């Protein structure tokens, strides 16, 4: 019996398709151990990030870092400008105009960084006796998953508000906390 070219072609096509399908099916991706999966998805689950702001460059750098951490999952950034109110004043006492101006300017800068990444930003001026207390309140209010705090340590200098705050936050973290230490 003479083979027909079309029949031979169909037979070859059939075999090739069958082989390729089985080959694809049998090549399974490697499974992830529970710990690895937890690590990957806990980062991916970070949807609200609080970035405490001061008008210093390292705080803005913390905003950039937070944006990069939250970009993939379209996280919301809460830009919380922390104002430590002296105990002599009531918490809702009017702020000196220069403090308010500085806060608005710092938040505006931070917001620009967030906008560049196409993420949603919420700005807030938080008054507290201690900065860590203000951050805790922001975490509670916005149901945040992460705090990214920029800190600059300088030799021969009195520890600033953020180093104090970092210390307090690390001792009693309200959620996941990342401290970005920029060398002086």
């Amino acid at each position, binding site marked *: 019996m003479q083979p027909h070219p*079309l*029949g031979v072609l169909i*037979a070859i096509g059939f*075999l090739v398709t069958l082989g390729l399908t089985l080959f694809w099916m049998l090549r399974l*991706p490697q*499974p*992830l151990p529970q710990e690895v999966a937890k690590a990957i*998805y806990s980062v991916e689950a970070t949807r609200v990030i609080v970035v405490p702001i001061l008008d210093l460059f390292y705080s803005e750098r913390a905003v950039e870092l937070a944006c990069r951490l939250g970009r993939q999952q379209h996280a919301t950034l809460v830009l919380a400008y922390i104002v430590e109110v002296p105990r002599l004043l009531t918490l809702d006492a009017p702020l000196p105009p220069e403090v308010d101006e500085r806060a608005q300017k710092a938040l505006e800068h931070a917001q620009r960084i967030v906008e560049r990444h196409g993420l949603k930003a919420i700005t807030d001026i938080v008054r507290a006796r201690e900065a860590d207390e203000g951050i805790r309140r922001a975490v509670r209010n916005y149901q945040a998953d992460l705090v990214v705090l920029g800190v600059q340590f300088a030799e021969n200098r009195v520890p600033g508000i953020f180093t104090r705050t970092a210390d307090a936050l690390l001792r009693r973290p309200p959620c996941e906390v990342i401290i970005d230490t920029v060398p002086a």
Partner: protein
Amino acid sequence: MEERESSFTKVKLRREVTVWGSFCWGYADVGADVYVALGLVMAAAQGATPLAFAIAGIVYIFVGLAYTEMASAYPIAGGGQYFTLRGLGDFGGLVAGAALMLDYTVDVALFAIASAGYINFFFPAAREFAVNIGPFHNVNLVWLAESLVLIAFLAVLNIKGIRESSLFNEVLGALDMVMEASIIVIGFAFAWRPELFLHQWHNEFPTTRQLLYAVSIAVISYVGLESVSQAAQETIRPATVIPRTSLALIIIVLMFALAFPTVSLGIVNWQDIARREGDPVAYLATHLPYIGFLAGPMAAVLAATIVLISANTGVMGSSRLAYSMAELGLISDWLSHIHPKFRTPVRSIVFFSAVAAAQAIFAFFSGRKAMETMANMYAFGAMLAYFLSTVALIALRIKEPHTPRPYKVPLNIRIGEAEIPVLGVLGVIGTFAMVVIVLWTHEIARITGPLWVAAWIAYYVWYRHRTGKPIFGNLPRNWDEEQLAILADTGEWELYERFRIELERRRRRSVEAK
């Protein structure tokens, strides 16, 4: 009761089915269908048999994709009945369960008849035997007796607790695929005559009603995707494995289902295949050049074995389904009682095997070809269950958008939080059309199919009323907790973490809303 639970829990939790095992589990079931369907469809669709298989294949693709998504998202035994109950509630689950139970019992009867048919390849006298008994003409009592013996044999095997071995399935699945592929490749390469194929296509084209009837029978070539879902709870890494095995199964079964009628019509006349209702593939194999003398008997032996295993999945499936339905509060747990000695659900095995035997007797006395009668019933049950399952796919997308889906049916339209699958909607339309076609074209299925479902509904109403459970309402269930437990049990940690985080987020959102 405790004993029953522990026995079944052990079975449910043992994960040993590999990717190849999962594929073969499905292939031993779906792949066997063409051995049965080829002759029946050829008798109705004549020269247009490949077209009938292709039309049915389109619906099969939609249904297959829906099953792939749901079986990988909910890797738990229960299949279509579980998906429907979860998506459409208890009553929907009952109707799907009734349709699947019809399928399983018919599966036992039909494939036992088919297995006996392939055995009769070696005994032509048994194949041709026919007597008239009162008003019943041309009843093949020998073939009927053989079928009943096979059903009894399967029942005894299952009562004694001989489980279908995954390894056995893997070896047989591989052998079967090699055999089927050899018939097709050798047939196309050395014996296929396009002019004969075209001649039959042009001159032997059926009427529209005949073609629709053939399509409704051709769908039985694609029934069996349930087995992949049923084995999900025993599959290693089901969320990763099932999408691959199901998609491969869709492609490969479709290829075989289209290739067999095409190669047949290019080698022999359709009438010859149609006449060999019991052993069409073996008959085709005998017409292969060079190896026909060997391929025919080999195909007959392999087909007799694989269709018997397919029948066995019916016996196993019916008892598992009865257990699943009892656990979900749809039926009494009397049927799923575990025998203290054999530790198998003896009552359900005996009961549903007896139903299958009664169906086989009915088929031989129905005045038509026995296998055709069974195929009609099979198509009705399968299409009704598939219709409900595709509706459940859409319902679950709306009700549980947060459930992680390792595979998603493509082409979706986002409405609010839910993504509505366009192919799922086409699947609903396609399967509904198939149910209508079956009811329109099948004289027996149009009466017995709805009667079967109505009997189950009547029982359900009585049982729920008696036990004080809501008839049209649902029993309280915590699906999210159950889903977490399933994912933890399967070791699918990626999905587990995604789901856990999503649940936490939803919880927070609801707290905020309050």
